[in-house]
């Protein structure tokens, strides 16, 4: 196979496009969250910067960039600086394998709507979600502060616990699609989205990604009521910004994955594929925000019990049932 | 000839069964004593039984010539190890000697205070092992008994010993163990060589005698055997365990050590080492001469310097054993039969002396020469026996040691006159320290006055038994020497 | 395969040696020793994967997978012991684990 200039240009174009999409999306997701929460809590939310507050994200970025960049004296400087990047990077990298739409034909070249169609996509995603744990762990530990350490240890336990159920809930999906590639998984749902066959796996996955994002009701690592800001208590300026942005990009990428795994990704009638995709992702984003506005925070023991005593065994059983069902079908 | 009753196996297993029974009865000391004595007596009767048999016999298929009693059972087939027992004249004398000495030992330990049952049971077990050693015709079996002897002895010295028993017993054990392990290697090497030459892997002694051993290797193998036997003998300079063990052992332990265990080494040399490696043994004979003569003289000299009676006797014993070594080294019919005779006589004389020292020790609770004196006046019977046995030990004509030492000297003089002269010098030294011992104990002045009890019936019976043998062998050694004749011819003319 | 077998083996051996060096050099710290052991085992896995790529069979990868499981069990066990001893002695320094002498 050979690449010509068009191929390379298309590749670079895709990369730029993906960056544009996720950064914009993340920025406006922040705004959307604040507005929706305001709506849910019967207040207005930010509306001063630009029309309807649309320029608020820009203002936020400028603020973060110009804030003082502090490192506590007792902190481990290297790890302290590395941690935010470790938190944000996996979220961004996950997007590399997400197909935003059906392959299209441009200048006679068949272009997939994803940066890289890895044949081990699911593994890639799971690997990156494991790496994301380091951000929380190192951040809290490097701060050398009690709140931060408590938050990071909580976060660590929570993230690894739910990673387990998340990974296991994907096994039936892999079995149904007979592939680890995300594009194949989406194609396998041409007839029927997997949520129909695997409602249980979907439920487990949904709860798990909520916990992976450390969102309410699973925001124990940064529970502001008890731990100030949890593992990023000591962070300020752009470093905090990276944690912050990372969390929102994470919402987007995990939402995208949920829609890819269970809702058929870009597939849908009438509307163009890419639109369908964003509708589904938007749905998940909204769901996240809605949940945050609605549910109270769990207690820590409840959180762990849910993961270990409920989701993990259930996911294992689900695998068995799926296996036998597929074999005997 | 194989008899209907497996006498040879019985000779080994009777004492072992006795040991178990005595051990089971150990709670009641008197029952254990009498039972042990009964087993000892039964063993003695059994040991004498072959005297009544036709000992010429006719050669049978599978039975090596010269053995009038023979038993052969499969045991560990993987290695061609068989449970082979055989008895010829030499074994017969040794077996009777063992049975006799054990009876003496049992009677001598009538008064043991602690754990007597266990003590007697160990004595019987030791007897079983020694009998097995004298009877076995399979090298593996021989080795097995050779080492198995050590365990009862270890306990006898260690548990009931005096002085530094643990030190002495472990020293004794380690010395003999090192030697015997090297012998084990030599045995295996011989076995492998024989197997490679004849395709039949066996430990049978008669078969192994026909192995062709390269001269150089033979020296090494014979060296290993010689080392092992020399330690147990003990020959100068491998004797350092011996005074400690002899001194610290209880009476019966010393008796068994001096009278029987040292004989097993001599027996091993005669039965196994010399016939197996004729060339190598001839090459090393000068060494044995030197060691033997040095031993006779040096130990006699050292004995002279001792104040502790038991230690003195220990050195005296090993000095006398030098004659055995000398006789074996000469390896002529006369010399070897003298050596065998000396083994018997030494067992009885030295054993008797150790028993007597034990008696004195019991009475005075000391073995120091200066604590004794004027015994002749106080307890004449005891003193009389003491005198007799000492005279025998010194080689007074008419008593047993004179006969055997004379035969050895005669035999050796023919082949190595210098060695014979040296040995003669040694026996003069023996005379000197014996006279001194007798003089100090029986007639000298004691440092502090002591009251001595006369010999009891039990002690008397033992002493009379021993004395009778001493005198009998001194005046009429012929029958015993006759027993040695036929087997020695076979061994020497191999 | 694009990478020759010999290169894989050289890299794996180097990794193995480095892991071993880590174990030997940081004997004082249990965690560092565990890390060294992990490196050694990773070198082993690399060898297996390289070998199975060379021969075109999956057996080596299978072994690697099993090694992963083994490693995980081993590390979890080690961590449990470290936590236990740490709570008893307040250190992960092996020099302080000195109840036994002789």
């Amino acid at each position: 196979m050979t690449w010509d200039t068009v191929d390379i240009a298309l590749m670079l174009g895709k990369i730029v496009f993906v960056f544009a999409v996720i950064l914009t999306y993340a920025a406006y997701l922040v705004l959307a969250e604040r507005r929706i929460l305001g709506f849910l809590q019967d207040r207005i939310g930010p509306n001063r910067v630009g029309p309807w507050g649309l320029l608020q994200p820009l203002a936020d970025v400028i603020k973060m960039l110009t804030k003082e960049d502090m490192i506590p004296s007792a902190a481990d400087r290297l790890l302290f600086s590395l941690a935010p990047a470790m938190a944000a990077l996996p979220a961004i990298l996950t997007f590399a394998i997400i197909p935003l739409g059906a392959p299209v034909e441009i200048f006679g070249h068949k272009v997939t709507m994803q940066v890289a169609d890895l044949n081990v996509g699911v593994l890639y995603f799971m690997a990156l979600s494991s790496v994301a744990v380091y951000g929380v762990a190192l951040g809290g530990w490097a701060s050398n502060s009690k709140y931060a350490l408590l938050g990071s240890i909580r976060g660590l336990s929570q993230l690894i616990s739910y990673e387990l159920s998340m990974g296991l809930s994907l096994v039936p999906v892999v079995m149904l699609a007979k592939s680890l590639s995300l594009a194949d998984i989406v194609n396998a749902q041409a007839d029927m989205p997997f949520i129909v066959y695997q409602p249980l796996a979907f439920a487990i996955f949904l709860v798990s990604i909520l916990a992976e994002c450390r969102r309410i009701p699973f925001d124990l690592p940064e529970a502001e009521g008890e731990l100030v800001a949890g593992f990023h208590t000591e962070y300020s300026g752009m470093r905090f910004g990276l944690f912050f942005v990372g969390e929102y990009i994470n919402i987007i990428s995990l939402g995208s994955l949920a829609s890819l795994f269970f809702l058929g990704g870009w597939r849908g009638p009438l509307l163009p594929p890419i639109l369908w995709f964003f509708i589904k992702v938007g749905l998940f984003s909204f769901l996240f925000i809605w949940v945050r506005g609605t549910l109270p925070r769990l207690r820590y023991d409840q959180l762990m019990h849910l993961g270990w005593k409920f989701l993990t065994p259930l996911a294992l059983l689900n695998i068995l049932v799926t296996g036998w069902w597929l074999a005997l079908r | 000839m194989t008899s209907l009753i497996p006498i040879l196996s019985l000779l080994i297993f009777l004492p072992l069964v006795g040991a178990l029974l005595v051990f089971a009865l150990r709670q009641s000391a008197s029952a254990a004593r009498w039972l042990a004595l009964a087993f000892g007596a039964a063993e003695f009767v059994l040991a004498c039984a072959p005297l009544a048999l036709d000992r010429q016999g006719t050669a049978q298929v599978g039975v090596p010539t010269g053995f009038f009693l023979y038993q052969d059972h499969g045991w560990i087939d993987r290695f061609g190890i068989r449970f082979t027992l055989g008895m010829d004249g030499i074994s017969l004398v040794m077996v009777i000697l063992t049975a006799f000495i054990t009876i003496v030992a049992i009677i001598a330990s009538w008064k043991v205070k602690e754990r007597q049952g266990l003590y007697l049971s160990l004595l019987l077990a030791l007897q079983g092992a020694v009998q097995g050693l004298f009877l076995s015709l399979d090298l593996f079996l021989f080795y097995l008994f050779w080492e198995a002897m050590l365990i009862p002895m270890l306990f006898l010295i260690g548990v009931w010993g005096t002085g530094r028993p643990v030190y002495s017993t472990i020293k004794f054990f380690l010395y003999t163990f090192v030697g015997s392990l090297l012998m084990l290697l030599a045995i295996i090497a011989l076995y492998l060589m024989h197997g490679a030459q004849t395709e039949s892997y066996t430990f049978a002694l008669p078969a192994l005698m026909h192995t062709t051993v390269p001269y150089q290797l033979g020296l090494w193998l014979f060296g290993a055997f010689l080392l092992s036997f020399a330690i147990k003998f003990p020959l100068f300079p491998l004797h350092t365990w011996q005074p400690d063990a002899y001194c610290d052992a209880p009476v019966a332990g010393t008796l068994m050590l001096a009278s029987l265990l040292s004989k097993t080494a001599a027996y091993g040399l005669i039965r196994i080492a010399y016939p197996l490696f004729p060339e190598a043994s001839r090459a090393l004979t000068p060494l044995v001469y030197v060691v033997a003569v040095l031993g006779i003289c040096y130990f006699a000299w050292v004995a002279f310097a001792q104040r502790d009676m038991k230690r003195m006797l220990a050195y005296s014993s090993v000095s006398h054993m030098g004659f055995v070594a000398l006789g074996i080294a000469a390896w002529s019919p006369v010399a070897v039969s003298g050596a065998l005779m000396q083994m018997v006589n030494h067992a009885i004389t030295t054993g008797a002396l150790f028993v007597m020292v034990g008696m004195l020790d019991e009475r005075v609770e000391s073995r120091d020469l200066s604590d004794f004196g004027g015994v002749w006046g106080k307890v004449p019977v005891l003193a009389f026996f003491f005198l007799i046995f000492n005279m025998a030990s010194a080689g007074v004509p008419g008593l047993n040691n004179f006969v055997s030492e004379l035969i050895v000297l005669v035999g050796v003089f023919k082949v190595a006159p210098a060695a014979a002269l040296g040995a003669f010098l040694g026996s003069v030294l023996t005379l000197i320290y014996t006279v001194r011992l007798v003089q100090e104990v029986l007639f000298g002045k004691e440092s502090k006055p002591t009251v001595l009890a006369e010999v009891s019936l039990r002690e008397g019976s033992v002493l009379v038994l021993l004395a009778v043998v001493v005198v009998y062998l001194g005046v009429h050694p012929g029958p015993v020497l006759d027993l040695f004749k036929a087997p020695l011819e076979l061994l020497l003319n191999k | 395969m694009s990478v020759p077998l010999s290169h894989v083996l050289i890299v794996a051996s180097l990794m193995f040696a480095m892991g071993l060096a880590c174990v030997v050099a940081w004997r004082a710290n249990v965690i560092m020793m565990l890390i060294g052991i992990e490196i050694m085992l990773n070198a082993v896995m690399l060898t297996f994967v390289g070998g199975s790529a060379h021969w075109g069979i999956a057996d080596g990868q299978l072994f690697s997978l099993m090694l992963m499981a083994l490693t995980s069990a081993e590390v979890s066990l080690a961590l449990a012991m470290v936590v236990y001893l740490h709570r008893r002695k307040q250190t992960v320094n092996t020099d302080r684990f000195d109840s036994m002498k002789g």
Partner: protein
Amino acid sequence: MTLTELYCLMPIVITGCAALFVLLCGPLLLSSSLTAIGVTASAAAGIWAAFTAPAPIQCIPGLAFTPLAQLLIPLFSFAAALTQLLSHGYNERRILKGEEYPATVLFALFAMCVLPCATNMLILFLALESVSFAFYILVSMDLNRAESGEAGLKYLLMGAVAAAFTAFGFALIFTGSGTLALSAALARPENRAIISAGWGVLILGMAFKLSLVPAHLWTPDVYQGAPSPVAAFLSTSSKVAAAALLLILLGHFPPMAELRAPLALLSVLSMVLGNLAALRQTNIKRMLAYSSVAHMGYLALALLTGSRDGYAAVLLYGAIYTAMNLAAFGAISSLSFEEEREQITDFTGIGFSAPVRGGVLALAMVSLAGIPPTAGFIGKFFIFYSALKSGLIALAVIGILSAAASAYFYLRVVAQLYMHRSEAPAPKPVGFAEGLALCAASVCILVIGVYPGPLLEMVESALR
């Protein structure tokens, strides 16, 4: 997998199921019934294996009921059963509660049953490591003593390094031969260097497991720290398992000639240094640890011969060593109070105040020293026989001299038991289970010592 094939692998199934059962139902059952279940399962596995004809076909990929398995599974089962019997009273005295203990012993046994059945390197390695894992746990089981935990960690760290070496060896052999199956993993001439490097690394790893000098440093600490019944199990079965692994490998493809010198060095160093170090010990468990180093040196000597006789000697010695060390550590464990009786001086006069246990300990010592008519003598005889037969005369002489020196420290224990006037506090009367175990071990020592024929035949047929 047919029913007959399952039939062959029943020991594995029995032990595995029993382990799971004990673990899961343990909280509901009494500790004595747990011991009973464990012992029954071990005995059942052993008896089943002993009376099943070996079938060389593969039952499950990687598993076959080999002749070697027919010998080793009963041996391991015997050790496991005795260990459980011994642990019963010991754990009560030392307040080691819980079903984890019997379950872990059974898990270890399960892995040991798998080991000789393995027909490929993966199963072999996994089985060996599973054995080690169970032992890591067992060693650190006694939470009442700091030594136990420390010993466990030390053992784990050393064991992990050893596992890395072993795995690297397997990896290189695999890379050189292109298959994991033992029967096919023959040296290809073009990859000779890789395979012999693999063998070298593998032997280093196994030197750790067998605790050969210079990889023996963990041994004394681990033996001292481990609960005594565990030390009994550890010092016997895990060593035999490691030796069996080497035997299996050697049976399929002998190592390169260039490995003889290093192996000989390992063997000599172990024999000499192990015995010398044991001379200095005052703690009986450490003494036994160094003695096991020396004994493994003898084993290595037999392995080194590369002959059938040598391999048979390894198996025989393994079986005998199992009986001896079970007796020794069993006696130590049954003599322990709430505290462990560890110093040699703690045993003064025990031979008379506790005749059975003292006698068993003395017998074990005599046997370890290799004095007839005990089994230890037969074992040593066979090893030195095979060494001489293969022409390793110098090694045999060194070995036998070191064995002679070793008699000193064994006898010191015997002397302490019987020949000292003062007396250590007498132990409580022996329990039924412990008494049974001790008697079984000592009967084995004596019977093998006097009549080794049947065992020799079994060993021979295991190598067929």
